[in-house]
């Protein structure tokens, strides 16, 4: 018998919505998470995240699975595996189809109307909570962290309670199942949004200084600076994505052509010896050479940033200006590579890539407290002035552990400090308008789970009592 198209469609949907697929996907996901965890032993955290989770097809290296072998052991090869995005998408599809196929409305007439209305109100409340209608654009948080978080969770809890009531009216005994899965979809959608829209960076400020940009410590840029204008510097920056070995960068804004001879994500810098075949023909690279190193591991106890370095050959009007070594380490020591082209002198820096902000943060004071008799930090806080000329804002704020500053869609957290001087702060700046979603989603799923299991438990206990 030849199956018709409709049969195929029905069978396809049945397979897509089947619990077998759910189980297979959950098993696949468990393994992928495991592989992506152990991969961090030998790979950087972000490399692992990109290679395993934020991709459609993951490439699982055998080396990752043999994480317990000594570090310099070489195990070649690997195999493709469904990536995080693929599993996530299939799980959502599986969930939606299976609900559409199996969950039936249990309500008619007024009950249906009331249920639908409650759900609509609940969804509207969810939307309001997520889009921060209930919390102000606060530049100073006076409440204790305990209350702040409790209030955020209570918002989610309130929303979830309304939604559960609506689901109960519409779906009866399966209310919890519907609600908790809706929460999971919401949560997975957030992770997707974060992947595409959230940005994070570091703001390093010394006492008495200001900053109006954040640095992305995962990526570098090659900055060509013309310091000649009196009141400002002319800066042209080439982002890391353009700095592949062998790439040639031509841009009318650049005074010369940049040819990337070799780009090293992580490198050690050491003094040059006579035996080195040194690529550099000018600048600091004559005395020092860069040696490529393995990327820093995310799982390492002292998770450090990659010390990138590159050899670049500069050319103008067909003539070679020289091959320079540029390195983050030089930049940290404020050691620019000086190049003269077209009568002007330019400073060359390989630095963390920067993003500029519409506001400025001025660090007045950084304070530090330790537990008695130890080096374990107890508390540290930055006393800053927030300046926003566009909006005419200028106010003093204290940013400290678990007490971030939320301003213009950014959240500024106390992340670190200058270990040498103890007079400089490091703020983590995150742009993520969806930060409230997990709070709400968490409470929705929790309510759904509790409702579902709670109903079963009550039923079970009632039956036992009846039997006894």
């Amino acid at each position: 018998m030849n199956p018709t198209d409709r049969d195929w469609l029905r069978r396809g949907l049945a397979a897509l919505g089947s619990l077998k697929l759910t189980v297979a996907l959950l098993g696949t996901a468990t393994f992928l998470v495991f592989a992506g965890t152990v991969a961090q032993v030998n790979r950087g955290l972000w490399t692992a995240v990109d290679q395993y989770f934020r991709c459609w097809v993951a490439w699982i290296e055998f080396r990752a699975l043999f994480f317990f072998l000594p570090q310099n052991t070489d195990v070649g090869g690997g195999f493709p595996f469904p990536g995080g995005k693929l599993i996530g998408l299939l799980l959502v599809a599986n969930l939606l189809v299976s609900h559409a196929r199996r969950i039936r409305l249990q309500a008619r007439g007024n009950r249906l109307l009331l249920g639908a209305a409650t759900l609509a109100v609940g969804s509207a409340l969810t939307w309001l909570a997520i889009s921060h209608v209930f919390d102000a654009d606060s530049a100073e948080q006076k409440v204790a962290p305990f209350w702040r978080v409790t209030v955020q969770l209570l918002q989610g809890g309130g929303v979830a309670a309304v939604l559960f009531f609506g689901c109960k009216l519409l779906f009866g005994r399966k209310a919890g199942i519907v609600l908790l899965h809706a929460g999971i979809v919401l949560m997975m959608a957030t992770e997707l949004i974060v992947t595409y829209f959230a940005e994070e960076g570091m703001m390093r400020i010394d006492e008495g200084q200001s900053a109006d940009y954040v640095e992305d410590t995962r990526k570098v840029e090659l900055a060509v600076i013309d310091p000649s204008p009196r009141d400002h510097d002319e800066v042209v920056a080439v982002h890391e994505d353009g700095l592949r070995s062998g790439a040639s960068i031509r841009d009318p804004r650049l005074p010369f052509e940049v040819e990337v001879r070799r780009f090293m994500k992580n490198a050690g810098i050491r003094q040059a010896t006579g035996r080195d075949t040194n690529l550099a023909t000018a600048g600091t690279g004559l005395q020092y050479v860069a040696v490529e190193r393995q990327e820093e591991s995310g799982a390492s106890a002292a998770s450090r940033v990659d010390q990138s370095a590159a050899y670049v050959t500069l050319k103008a009007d067909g003539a070679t200006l020289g091959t320079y070594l540029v390195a983050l380490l030089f930049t940290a020591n404020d050691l620019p590579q000086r190049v003269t082209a077209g009568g002007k002198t330019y400073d060359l820096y390989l630095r963390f890539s920067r993003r500029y902000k519409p506001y400025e943060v001025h660090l007045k004071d950084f304070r530090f407290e330790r537990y008695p008799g130890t080096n374990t930090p107890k508390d540290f806080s930055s006393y800053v002035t927030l300046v926003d000329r566009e909006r005419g804002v200028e106010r003093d704020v204290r940013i400290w552990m678990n007490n971030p500053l939320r301003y213009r869609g950014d959240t500024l957290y106390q992340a670190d400090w200058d270990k040498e001087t103890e007079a400089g702060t490091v703020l983590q700046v995150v742009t993520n308008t969806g930060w409230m979603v997990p709070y709400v989603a968490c409470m929705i799923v929790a309510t759904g789970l509790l409702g579902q299991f709670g109903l079963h438990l009550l039923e079970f206990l009632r039956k036992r009592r009846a039997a006894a």
Partner: protein
Amino acid sequence: MKTRAMPFVILLLAALYVGVKAVRSSAPPDQMRLDVFGEIPVAHGGRVKPIDSLARNLLRVVSDRETFEDGQGKSQPAVRWLLDVMVDAQDPEKRARKHKVVRIYDLDLLNELKLERRKYYRYAIDEFADRLPDLGERVQKAREKKENEQKLDRFETHLLEFVSKLEYYEAIARLAIPHVVPPADGTNAWKTLAEAKRASDPAADAFLAIRDAYAEGDVAQFNEAVRSYASRLSEGRPSDSRKGRFEAYFNEVDPFNVAKWLYFLAFALTALSWLGWEKALNRSALWLVALTFSLHTLALVGRIYLSGRPPVTNLYSSAVFIGWGCVLLGMILERLYKLGVGNTIASISGFATLLIAHILAAEGDTMAVLQAVLDTQFWLATHVTCITMGYSTTYVAGLIGMLLILRGVLTPSLTPELRASMARMMYGAICFGTFFSFVGTVLGGLWADDSWGRFWGWDPKENGALMIVLWNALILHARWGGMIRDRGLAILSVVGNVIVSWSWFGVNELGVGLHSYGFTEGRAFWLVLFVVSQAVVAGLGMLPPESWRSRPPEAGAHAEKSVPSGP
């Protein structure tokens, strides 16, 4: 008769045992009151604690034990060792150097020090002091390597460990440890004796009077000096003094250790019940577990009072709390089903987790201070508690799974009714496990978001928690879809044990693994052993039903009726 009397008698005996343990024995008047000295609060490692705790922690680091044997082979408290080291400079006998307390188990190092292997590998400083200068160069080299973050080999690691033990000795002898003198002002800057003497603080002299009396062996003067110092402190710092007294008492009673052995006894009773007298023995076990559980709970409350923090703050306390959760759940299951299964679960998990806690305590102060970001009571109380409850419930399901497989394969005792009941227990435990691990994991993400603005960072510990959620969800969906029955539920729950252990211990080993010399040492070794054991049990479970000694019910679906259906 038997059924009623036996539980009473056992409960009474156990309560008597706990009572005896809880009463402090005080030294006779003609001896030094080391116990009172041990109650004096001092600051060390960022925390105010009684000298008794300090001495135990330090001796544990040096010797892996909290007591030591004197020349006559008599067991002596850690405080005596601490005092002996403190008076080293003025002690003509140099007793501190004769105590065999420094643990050296690296054979190469023993060779270097020209020491014979002996049981327990504990040596006195006098036995190897003359060999130390020869090691100087190698120590220097190992230190440089460590500073440059190069990999140390096994010998170098053990050498540095050994040297750090000696450094403790030396620091105590020159009074750099502990910070004895409380701050006079409102700050929390405690001073060491050396610092306080320089500042001519009268408290320093009062403390040194104790030390001098000890050095001279003057019992009356020692007791008087201790008494006057203690009363002086209880006026100046009443809260520290009160906590100091309680902590010293807590140390001596060691309630978790008492509970550990009582759980073991309870397990022995349940094991006996498999041979006969089922009802009486089971009831005795349940009562004994309940008594032990109350002790366990009291001890947890005591720790919360002492540390001023929610129950779980580190690996040690997580073990204690996971055990508490498992026992609670086991008792509830026993109350509901009265099959002895709950007793077995409660007693095994109580004993095992407290044993693990005991081993973890070797790493130093179990109430050590936390890094700044972890210091948030709200998150510790919610996230960490939920996560550990998730571990507990998932372990309980896994233990029931093990029990089902082992009894089914190896004995004919697994009746169809028992089997169905155990499946329901597993199912319930996994439901709760899913709830707690999900909420705990998400709360962890929210904590991260609240602290540094990243809800999910794919960090190993987060991933471990996520794996538990995924696995529990997998089990539930497989059950709802009818893909597994009792046997499959048991096998998958046993795999759950592996996943929880990975999340609990494995990911920590990963971070350390970068700097250590392999995955076969210490904790990692036990973890691997546990995983292998679980694989064996799961493998047994996969044997065809015909080869089980308890023949399963006919291959029909009648066992499924009790299970709720999913979407």
